[in-house]
């Protein structure tokens, strides 16, 4: 309720952004955007001579039909949850942090460097995760400080940091971190730091619990602590928050650090978990674009830590199923999925999307109302 009050008093344009991206009313618009994205994806496939129906059915079957499919979807979802959190935490503080990609790369370098020393399992895992978190955080402090001291727009600075990280990684992977047996990758993470498989024969490891746990922690921090309230208040209405004694500088810095920690953990999810070689490649291999895909996940998840869990599973499924799709009878490249993601994000930018389709809106409003009445009457019956 407090949040709604804050929103009502915030400047008009911020209110627009907030309503578009967080939305108090449930996931109808996310679902709608996902359907539009998949439909446009189907049209593109059809135009370019693929069979969209066969492709989508292979994809869905591969992603959600059995235990193994679900496990692979979950394995891809784990890092996406964390990069989505990077974007969402900062968005809640009013910042557009699109630097998850660079923070992920730097954390990846830190994670593989645990191969230089040996520790007992358990401790080695913790050290690897700590390395990832610290590296991610360090790389995200740069844009935050540039924003606070010089007013550099975070969209520009985070992208520049991404490219600097990209070239730094190419350099380090080619020199000190290089695997002497194969020059295009780093030394692998030692087995004492690798998470064991949760479902045999798939990529899903115990690492996924780190992702889910972190997302719950973020939920707790943002909605059940004072500093979290300050972050959200500052993002919604900076001037009112300032009058209320909230230090915007502190909330911006905190959101960037938490975002960096989250992106860092995403790199650990891949290198300690789902990757088959547990090494980073010269052109970053599996880490490529995970940061950007996370933004799509964040928006469909309404920038809420819990919503992100579901939307990450959806996108993880698209990717896991997409891998099967490209092996099927009409092989469609898995890159299709990113096209669909782009359309979804583009669609999500439209506020109150459902209003464009008045009929759909009318029906969905009715549906929600009816469901609510149903729920409340059921509740009344119970209390009686």
């Amino acid at each position, binding site marked *: 309720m407090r949040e709604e009050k804050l929103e009502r008093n915030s400047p*008009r*344009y911020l209110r*627009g*952004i907030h309503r*578009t*991206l967080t939305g108090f009313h449930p996931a109808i618009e996310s679902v709608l955007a996902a359907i539009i994205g998949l439909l446009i994806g189907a049209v*593109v496939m059809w135009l*370019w001579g693929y069979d969209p129906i066969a492709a989508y059915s292979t994809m869905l079957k591969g992603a959600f039909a059995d235990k193994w499919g679900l496990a692979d979807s979950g394995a891809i979802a784990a890092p996406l949850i964390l990069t989505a959190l990077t974007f969402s935490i900062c968005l809640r503080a009013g910042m*557009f942090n*699109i630097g998850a990609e660079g923070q992920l790369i730097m954390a990846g370098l830190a994670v593989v460097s645990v191969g230089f020393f040996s520790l007992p399992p358990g401790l080695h895992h913790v050290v690897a995760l700590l390395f990832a978190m610290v590296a991610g955080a360090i790389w995200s402090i740069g844009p935050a400080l*540039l924003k606070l001291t*010089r*007013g*550099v*727009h975070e*969209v*520009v*600075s985070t*992208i*520049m*940091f*991404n*490219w*600097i990280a990209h*070239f*730094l990684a*190419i*350099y380090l992977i*080619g020199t000190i971190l290089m695997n002497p047996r194969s020059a295009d990758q780093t030394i692998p993470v030692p087995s004492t730091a690798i998470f064991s498989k949760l479902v045999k024969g798939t990529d899903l490891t115990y690492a996924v619990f780190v992702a889910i746990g972190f997302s719950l922690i973020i939920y707790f921090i943002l909605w059940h602590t004072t500093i979290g309230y300050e972050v959200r208040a500052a993002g919604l209405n900076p001037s009112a928050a300032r009058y209320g004694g909230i230090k915007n500088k502190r909330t911006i810095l905190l959101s960037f650090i938490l975002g960096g920690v989250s992106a860092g953990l995403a790199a650990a999810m891949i290198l300690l978990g789902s990757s088959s070689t547990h090494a980073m490649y010269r052109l970053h291999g599996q880490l490529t*674009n995970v940061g*950007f*895909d996370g*933004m*799509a996940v964040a*928006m469909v998840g309404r920038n809420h830590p819990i919503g992100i869990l579901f939307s990450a599973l959806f996108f993880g499924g698209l990717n896991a199923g997409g891998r099967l799709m490209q092996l099927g009878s009409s092989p469609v*490249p898995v*890159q*299709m*999925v*990113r*096209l*669909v*993601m*782009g*359309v*979804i*994000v*583009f*669609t*999500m*930018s*439209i*506020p109150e999307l459902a209003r*464009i389709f008045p009929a759909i809106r009318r029906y969905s409003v009715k549906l929600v109302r009816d469901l609510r009445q149903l729920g409340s009457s059921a509740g009344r019956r119970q209390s009686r």
Partner: protein
Amino acid sequence: MILTLIGFTLRAMVPITLTAVGEIIGETAGLFNIGLEGILLVSAFAGAFGATIVGPIGGLAIGMGVGALVGLLFAIVSTYWKGTQMVAGIGINLLAIGFVEFGMIRFSSNAGAFSIPSEFQLTRLNTPFGLLSPVIFIALALPFVIYWFLRRTRAGLILKAVGESPEAADVAGINVNRVRLVASTVGGMLAGLGGAYMSVAWFGFVTKGMSAGRGFIALATVVFSGLNPILALVGGALFGFFRSLGLWVDTIPGFPIPAEFLQMLPYIVTLLVVSGVIGRVRFPKALGQPYKRE
């Protein structure tokens, strides 16, 4: 030797300057498009494939057309549908990566890169600075034309009014949304020319990472220029110079700094320049906000 360096700089400057000038037109009208990176990438791809079918000039035209189309889409979403421009821009960037990765695999035997046969590339002119594409001269002249247009014509003033105070413009009988639509389309077209130039007239190939942050460097250039197209030319030249310097120094045998660090130069310089000028530049009041009639 200095002449070659200037030639290098001129070639590297074009996409950044064209994109920045296009964005200046859009931002003057109050639209903040961070999807430039995506427009560069898509139009480089479309231009390259267009060039192999209808020749280099046609390829450039197709690139411009695709850029204009994306600009138009962006404008529709962020004016008539009151979309969040930042998010629409991120969407364009993601869409572009997906589209180009997908298209590469569909249309090219090599998923990593698609080279344009030399007969389909734009002819370069032989100058003392090395081989220069005619597009470079367009990029050199255009900022002055746009400067004149923005400061000295009625249409330029209308554009400014729409960006500064859409309410006042509306009262004066200007159709705010339509003006923004045109501005964004023209801006997208210029970015599209920049993208198509990269593949058809400069590199001669397309890769999925070929925009390499240039769209964002162009955004930084716009900040640096304070919406003055002529300063955008200077900014573009500056970043072009540092990119070329890296490439050029790298050819010196035994140079102590590794190539990767030289390749970082344009990005580091961008950060330094942008953090140096902020606070002195002023942006249109209504930048980034959709206009709603009360």
